[in-house]
């Protein structure tokens, strides 16, 4: 792990309007992640894990404070700059996979490369490499509804990793998977983290995921309660 900060969150506050009042989802978060970390935001539902992940992913903006991703202040990015950041530097893995149902496995994984204007032959090579990492090279022509949950999540990982992003944000990636599939998925992500030096940040309350994390940032009611680094 290199000591280069890729994510820096400073005094971050996020409030949502609820009726006539407001709900504070994040209340003064200070976190910093270096390149190559395999870290997780751990906490119960409503603790603010996904909200923080969304802000780091430039899908949302803070109410107060700032989140810096690769030295870019999220609250200052316009829609185009935020999209560019996501397109080039961030990979997302979702609880419910969010694969494009009418596209084949190959097309799903190819999608981020299309946005980055890679040539056809480059795309072909990179997609096959990514599918090889997750062990699904035999189902390139299948469509997501024809696949199991574990296979879908592997494709989602391949899609997130295919462009070799700096950071992968994974929101409850094992929530819909059984224990065996969860371990397989997590091992795959751990291997990719080691081999590609990609920073992984999870939002989870799943013990299986937590057991793989090398750093656990515990959130309770929108605050960092504990930041635990496990030396390996």
């Amino acid at each position: 792990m290199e000591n280069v900060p890729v994510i820096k969150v400073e005094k971050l506050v996020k409030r949502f309007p609820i009726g006539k009042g407001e709900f504070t989802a994040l209340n003064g978060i200070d976190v910093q992640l270096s390149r190559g970390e395999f870290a997780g935001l751990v906490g119960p539902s409503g603790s603010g894990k996904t909200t923080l992940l969304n802000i780091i992913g430039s899908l949302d903006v803070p109410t107060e404070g700032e989140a810096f991703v690769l030295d870019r202040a999220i609250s200052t990015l316009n829609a185009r700059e935020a999209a560019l950041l996501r397109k080039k530097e961030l990979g997302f893995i979702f609880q419910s996979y969010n694969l494009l149902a009418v596209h084949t496995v190959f097309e799903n994984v190819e999608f981020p490369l299309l946005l980055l204007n890679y040539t056809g032959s480059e795309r072909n090579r990179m997609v096959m490499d990514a599918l090889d990492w997750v062990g699904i090279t035999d189902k390139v022509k299948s469509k997501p509804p024809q696949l199991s949950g574990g296979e879908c999540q592997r494709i989602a990982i391949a899609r997130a990793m295919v462009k070799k992003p700096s950071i992968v944000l994974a929101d409850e990636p094992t929530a819909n998977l059984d224990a065996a599939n969860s371990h397989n998925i997590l091992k795959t992500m751990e291997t990719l983290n080691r081999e590609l030096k990609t920073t992984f940040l999870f939002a989870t309350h799943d013990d299986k995921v937590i057991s793989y994390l090398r750093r656990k940032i515990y959130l309770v009611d929108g605050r960092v309660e504990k930041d635990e680094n496990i030396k390996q």
Partner: protein
Amino acid sequence: MKTAFKLAFRNLTGAGLRTWLNVIVLSFSFVVIIWMKGIIEGWNRQAKNDMTRWEIGGGQFWHEKYDPFDPFTLTESHAPVPEEFIPEVEKGVMEPYLIAQGSIYPRGRMQSIMIKGINPKQTIFLIPSHKLDTAVTEAIPAVIGSIMSKNLKIGVGDRMMIQWRDASGTFDASEILIREVFAANVPNIDQGQVYIPLEKLRSMMNLPGEATLITFRDGVSGISAAPPGWVHKTKQELTASVDKVIKMKSAGTSVFYAVLLLLAMLGIFDTQVLSIFRRQKEIGTYIALGYTRSQVVGLFTLEGTMNAVLAALVGAAYGLPFLAWQAKVGWTMPMDTSDFGMSIAQTLYPAFSAGLVIMTVLVIMLVTLIVSYWPSRRIAKMNPTEALRGRIQ
């Protein structure tokens, strides 16, 4: 843009039956609208062509007092054929007509008619005037149109009395023999009209060498200016009534196009609205993967618009053979067109042009684009984090 096209195409073809249903309905609109416009254009051409060949030639000189809508002007609207036209008349480039009012007595009934004197040797019109060139002397040879024949229940070989008033106001009568019944699509030259030899009518009217109007052959150039007492009527002026009718008909059929388009657009609009709610997660995913919201709006609009592109291709696949076949065999009107009171053939041959097809395709594409964009604008207001979870109601 290339990526958006690729994605839109994948999404569209991936949607399967839903897409094809929209595409087939829209392709039907393409074909029917082009066919109907082709029929109108074909009618326009046929009407003008028939008028040229049966009635107006390349244009006419009217006696200055001639008013086709006022039969009482006929007693005054005649004059000798101008000197400068005589060589042209002799060459057959111009043909004088003499028109008189009269009555016909078929089966003992009386019917007001126009008696038209026409040169039996003329070749400007399709009227079978050669049938008037006969040695029969006991009755005046005459030809009539099929509408007149049908209305008065008279036909070839029938004899009946006609009565007229000559130039000095004296009534006279004689028997005519129907030598031919012609079928034209131009009611102006048919209803209530009897054609007899020009020289015979001149002698009956005591108007030697005179004419009411003079028609010149279509395509003849260098027609001189109207001599005093005559008015030059161009082909465009004489076919203006057809343009008016066609314009009215075009406006009327536009309602039909609008209904057809509305049905097709309803399908696309409905699909777009449903898509935006059903595909929230997908929209959120596009944004997470690097699209801006406005790019997603563009993608959805493109998807909707590509329905029209696919419809144009599908429409071309079955529409081109159909339209080509129609242009060859024509469309026969299910009712008798002779009572329509306007120049219209029983079988209309649609006329298609590249301009007609391109314009129709462009208009439908534009309407589809608007209908696709309208509901897609909603995406621009979506919160991507909510969309990712499919939580937007």
